């Protein structure tokens, strides 16, 4: 089956006072129909910018410099703004990390769902009372779908009248209102507490199965990926460092950074073990040397790593960006 979304060689740059920041530097992504792809990496690794690029939402001083973004074979970069608007929200929808700031404080929840429907839903009656009634019914249905009770009355309320978990659900309801083929969920749980996190993730997984859409789940939590994603892509400093089926990547991580991330999550059965976060920080993306970007933090770095390091195949459906893969496994 062909991929729903195929990104090749994406490079996105921000022109800042300090210099050019290549926030996304040669990223390939493939999202298959019906699958959930996890994107992991520390904060600042380029996850959000990658998908903002896909949506055509990179704002000045940023710019998509290179690459192909194929959605169902169409190159989104070649579309006009008007054509792109027909894709956004309709074909590809997105939720943002912080629902509190992503929902407009001055508009009711009902209006924020309604306008999405009005922008894209061609099945609605053309005008008048039937149209209003249909929009209302769909809005209530969407809120019901994401588990918001007494939706009818809550449509009149403003975002600040909802709890954090509820707001995240509302944003998901808005994103799903037009039944997109792909949902990009950018850290849907980061701002929430643990029990609510689990509920929201269940909700996304459940709806994905029901609507048969694909999901890109951006997170910095490999535990979330392990539970919800078919495949995973690990990003570091604007590049993909490892990708493959989730179970295999977690069982046998091939990149030292993935290993570091895995070591940093507390696992059941290993309780009591100290969490070992990766030491050091994501490097400054300005004026980076051509070496492996993980070099400064890598516990097994060597001289070969000072040359540019490309992605290498790492078994069936897997690849990783590390010179260690060239060595014959012991």
């Amino acid at each position, binding site marked *: 089956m062909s991929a729903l979304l195929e990104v090749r060689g994406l490079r996105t740059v921000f022109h800042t006072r300090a210099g050019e920041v290549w926030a996304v530097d040669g990223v390939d992504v493939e999202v298959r129909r019906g699958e959930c792809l996890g994107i992991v990496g520390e904060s600042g690794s380029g996850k959000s910018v990658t998908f*903002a690029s896909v*949506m055509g*939402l990179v*704002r000045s001083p940023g710019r998509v410099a290179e690459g192909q973004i194929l959605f169902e074979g169409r190159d989104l970069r070649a579309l006009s*703004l008007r054509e792109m*608007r*027909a*894709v*956004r*929200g*309709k074909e590809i*929808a*997105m939720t*943002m990390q*912080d629902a509190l*700031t*992503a*929902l*407009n*404080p*001055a*508009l009711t929840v009902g209006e924020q769902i309604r*306008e*999405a429907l009005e*922008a*894209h839903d061609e099945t609605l009656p053309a005008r008048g009372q039937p149209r209003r009634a249909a929009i209302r019914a769909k809005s209530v249905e969407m809120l019901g779908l994401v588990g918001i009770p007494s939706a009818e009355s809550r449509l009149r309320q*403003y975002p*600040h009248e909802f709890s954090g978990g509820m707001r995240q659900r509302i*944003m998901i309801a*808005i*994103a799903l209102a037009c039944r997109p083929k792909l949902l990009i969920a950018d850290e849907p749980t980061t701002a929430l507490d643990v029990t609510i996190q689990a509920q929201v993730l269940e909700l996304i997984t459940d709806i994905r199965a029901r609507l048969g859409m694909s999901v890109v789940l951006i997170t910095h939590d490999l535990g979330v990926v392990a539970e919800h994603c078919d495949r995973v892509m690990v990003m570091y400093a604007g590049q993909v460092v490892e990708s493959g089926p989730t179970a295999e990547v977690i069982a046998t991580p091939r990149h030292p950074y993935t290993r570091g991330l895995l070591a940093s999550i507390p696992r059941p059965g290993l309780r009591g073990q100290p969490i070992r976060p990766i030491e050091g920080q994501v490097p400054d993306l300005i004026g980076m040397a051509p070496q492996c970007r993980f070099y400064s933090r890598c516990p097994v770095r060597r001289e070969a790593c000072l040359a540019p390091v490309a992605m290498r195949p790492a078994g069936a459906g897997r690849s990783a960006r590390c010179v260690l893969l060239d060595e014959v496994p012991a």
Partner: protein
Amino acid sequence: MSLGKLIERLLQLVPVLLGVSLIVFVMMALTPGDPVQIMIGDQNITPEQEDALRRGLGLDRPIVERFFVFLGNAMQGDFGQSFYHRRPVADVIAERLPATIELSLVALIVALVTAIPLGVLAAIRKNSIFDKLATVGSLLGVSLPGFWFGILLIMLFAVQWHILPVSGRIGYSSEIETITGFLLIDTLLRGNLPAFWDAVKHLILPAVTLGLPMTAILMRVTRTSMLEVLRQDYVTFADAKGLSRRRVLFRHALKNALIPTVSVAAIETGSLLGGNMIVETVFGWPGLGRLVVESIFLRNYPLVQAAVLLYAVIYVGLNFFADILYTILNPRVKL
């Protein structure tokens, strides 16, 4: 808006009005010039007659006593007689007020209608030639003295090009019997369209002069808040929904960006009051502002007192109104 809040605001007004009264009283007492001498002018009058006049106006009493007499009367709604008009101050002010309100409202509308679109345009075309011109323009707008700008407009539009009248509210030939005191309304009520257009023509230059600084300020406020709002996540999210640019700009961004604009507009309307005195004087506009200026020159104490108190009430009222507007526009705030 709770009743308690309303009462609180009304109570806040008391010290404001007391303080304003005191300050005006002291300032009038300290300014040189004697109202009685001014009234006499070069008429021949005996010292006895002069004393009688002074006594009649209550000006023979010590200043402290005069202040308390004024307060006592004012609390009963009696602001005394205008020295000059020999009629109750309240009546004289009431006659002049509609002209001032009409001019101020038109100036406010002119300011809002020009400032908001210009501010939005400057924001979405940030750093463009237009934006830079707008910046320079608004700087000029706040810094040009009103009398200078007003005279410039008169020289160009009235004296040079004869497009608009030099001064006044309406031409002699168009004068009508008033109903509400608002000429734009009265001329229409009387069905006198030529008079209406005449009134409009008379309004243009003073309204533009009066509204200019406010336009400049509101444009800057709109531009700044629009830029701030356009950076917000909810604008990105609105774009991510595939909404039209119009909807993103005007429904999502502008609705939030207008919150500061409207608040500032309500407060700045108070500063139109000060502008009125200059603009009405320059354009011979028969409103309260010019009356106050004339009254100051004539040392017409009761009128100045009452007018300043009225200004204070309006000012406080506008601030209160700004707060109410803020809550209406911003669902997150509850008064």
